[in-house]
C-alpha cells in the first residue's frame, strides 16, 4: 500500500501538519543545539537571538549603515550590472541568431569565456574599476551576461521558419525581421533567461562584495565574520535570501504573465 503513496497526493491536512512539523523540527534542533550550551552563543546563537539581531540591524547602524542601506547599495549595484547584461546580452543574442557570420565569430569566444567563473573576474574588476561600484558591477555583469545571450540566441534560432520566410517574402529588412519577428517570438525564452541571469547576478554580487566592496550586504557579512558574530552573519544571509527570493518571484510573475497573455 505504501508505495502507491508515490503517485498519490497527500490530503492537504496531512501535508500541512507534516510541513509544520518539519519546520518545527528544523528550528527545534537549531534551538536545542544553541540553548544546550555545547556551542558558544557567538558561534551558534538561538533562532530568537538571530531574529533580534536582524531587527536591531534595521534600526542601528553596523559598519556605517543600517541593514536597509547596505541592501540598497547592493541592490543598486545589482540593478546596474544586471541591467547592462540584459541591455547588451539580449540584442547580441538576437543578432547572433540572425546573422550567421556574427554567430560564427562570437560563439567560440563566448564558449571559451563561459568557463571562467564570474568570481574569477574579481582581481581584474578591482584593478580596472576599483572597489566602489565599478568592480562589483563587472563581476555581476560577467555572471548575468551568458544566460541573456544564450536565451535570446536560442529564441531567435528556433522561431518558426514560416514566420521568417513570410517576412522575407514580403520584403522585410534585417532590422524589421529582428525587431518584429525574432524579438516578439523569443520573448518567453528571453524572460526565462533573465530569471536565470538575475539569480546568477545576485549570487555574483554577494561574492564580489565579500571580496571587493566597502559597503553592501556582502560587506556586512565579512565584517560580521571579522567580529565573530554569527548572529550578524546569519541576519545578512537571511536578508540576502529574502531579496534573492523577491527578485526571482518578481521575474517568475512576469514570466507567467507573458505566457498567459500569449495563451500558452
Amino acid at each position, binding site marked *: 500500500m505504501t508505495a502507491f503513496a*508515490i*503517485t498519490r497526493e497527500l490530503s492537504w491536512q496531512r501535508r500541512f501538519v507534516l510541513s509544520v512539523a518539519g519546520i518545527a523540527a528544523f528550528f527545534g534542533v537549531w534551538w536545542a543545539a544553541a540553548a544546550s550550551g555545547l556551542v558558544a552563543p557567538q558561534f551558534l546563537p538561538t533562532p530568537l537571538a538571530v531574529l533580534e539581531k536582524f531587527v536591531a540591524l534595521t534600526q542601528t547602524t553596523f559598519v556605517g549603515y543600517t541593514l536597509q542601506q547596505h541592501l540598497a547599495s547592493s541592490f543598486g549595484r545589482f540593478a546596474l550590472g544586471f541591467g547592462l547584461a540584459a541591455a547588451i546580452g539580449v540584442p547580441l543574442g538576437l543578432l547572433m541568431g540572425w546573422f550567421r557570420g556574427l554567430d*560564427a565569430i562570437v560563439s567560440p569566444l563566448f564558449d571559451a569565456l563561459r*568557463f571562467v567563473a564570474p568570481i574569477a573576474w574579481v582581481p581584474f574588476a578591482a584593478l580596472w574599476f576599483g572597489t566602489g561600484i565599478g568592480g562589483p558591477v563587472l563581476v555581476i555583469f560577467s555572471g548575468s551576461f551568458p544566460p541573456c545571450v544564450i536565451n535570446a540566441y536560442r529564441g531567435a534560432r528556433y522561431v518558426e521558419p514560416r514566420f521568417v520566410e513570410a517576412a522575407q517574402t514580403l520584403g522585410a529588412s534585417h532590422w524589421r525581421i529582428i525587431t518584429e519577428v525574432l524579438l516578439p517570438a523569443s520573448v518567453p525564452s528571453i524572460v526565462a533567461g533573465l530569471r536565470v541571469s538575475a539569480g546568477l547576478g545576485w549570487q555574483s554580487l554577494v561574492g564580489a562584495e565579500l571580496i571587493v566592496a566597502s559597503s553592501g550586504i556582502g560587506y556586512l557579512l565579512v565584517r560580521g565574520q571579522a567580529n565573530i558574530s554569527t548572529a550578524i552573519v546569519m541576519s545578512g544571509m537571511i536578508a540576502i535570501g529574502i531579496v534573492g527570493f523577491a527578485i526571482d518571484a518578481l521575474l517568475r510573475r512576469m514570466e507567467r504573465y507573458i505566457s498567459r497573455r500569449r495563451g500558452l
Partner: protein
Amino acid sequence: MTRSHERRPVWGGVVTFVVLAVAWYMLTTLTNTIGSGRFSSPAETWDALRQIAFAGYADARLAEHILHSVKLVLLGFAAAAIVGVPLGLAMGASRGFEAFLNPTFLLIRPIPPLAWIPLAIVWLGLGDAAKVLIIWFAAFVPAVINSYSGVRSIEPYLIEAARMLGVPRAMLMREVLIPGALPMIFTGLRLSLQACWTTLVAGELIGAIAGLGHVLYQASLDIFPAMIVVGMGSVAVTAAVMTVGLSWIERRAIPWRQA
C-alpha cells in the same frame, strides 16, 4: 528550415582567435595602448605561466595549486552527492517525507552558496574544512532537489505497473525509481559542479593557503596582471575538464539516453 540544423563553420572560431591574438599583441606590445599595469602582454603572460609552472608562485607550483583546488571540489562534491542523492530519492519515494523536509529546503534554498562562506569561516576558520563545507553545501541542495524531481518526473503508470506486478520496495527503487531519476540527477550534478567550482574560487579568494583562488588573490595583491590572466585561464581550463569528465561518466551511467 535547415537553418537551425546547420553546424557552425569552423573557420569562424579560428578567425576570431587569430584576430584576437593579433589585437592583443598590437595593443599591449606594439602600440602600448594598454599599459602593463592594466593587462599583460602575450610575452609577460607566457613568462608568468612558466614562472608558476616551474618555479612556483604563491607558495606552490601551478600543478599543486590545481591539484589542491580539484581535491577540495571533488571531496565536497562527492560528499554532497552521497548524502544528497539518497535524501532526494527518499523524498521522491515518500510524499510524507517530502512534506516533512521540503519546507525547510524552501527556506534555505534562496541563500546562495557564496553567502555561506563567512559562516563557514566563523565556524571552521580559513583552512580546508571550511572550503569543503561550503562546496558540500553548494552541491547538496541541487543534488537533493534534482533527485527528488527526477523521481517525481517518472510516469506514474510505470510505478503503478511495477506495484501491480508485486515488485518489492527495494526492487522498485533499484529498477524503476533510480534509473528513471538518473537523467535529472546528472543534470543536477552538472549544475552543482559548476556552482562548486565558483564557490571554491570565491572561498580561496577570501582566504586560503593554496589553490587557484589563492593564486588570483596573491596576484591581485601584487598587481601582477599576467599572473591574474594565468590564474583565470587555469580556472577555466580546470572547470572545462571537470565538466567533460562528468559528461563522460553520465554517458556511461545512462547509455540508453541520447545526449
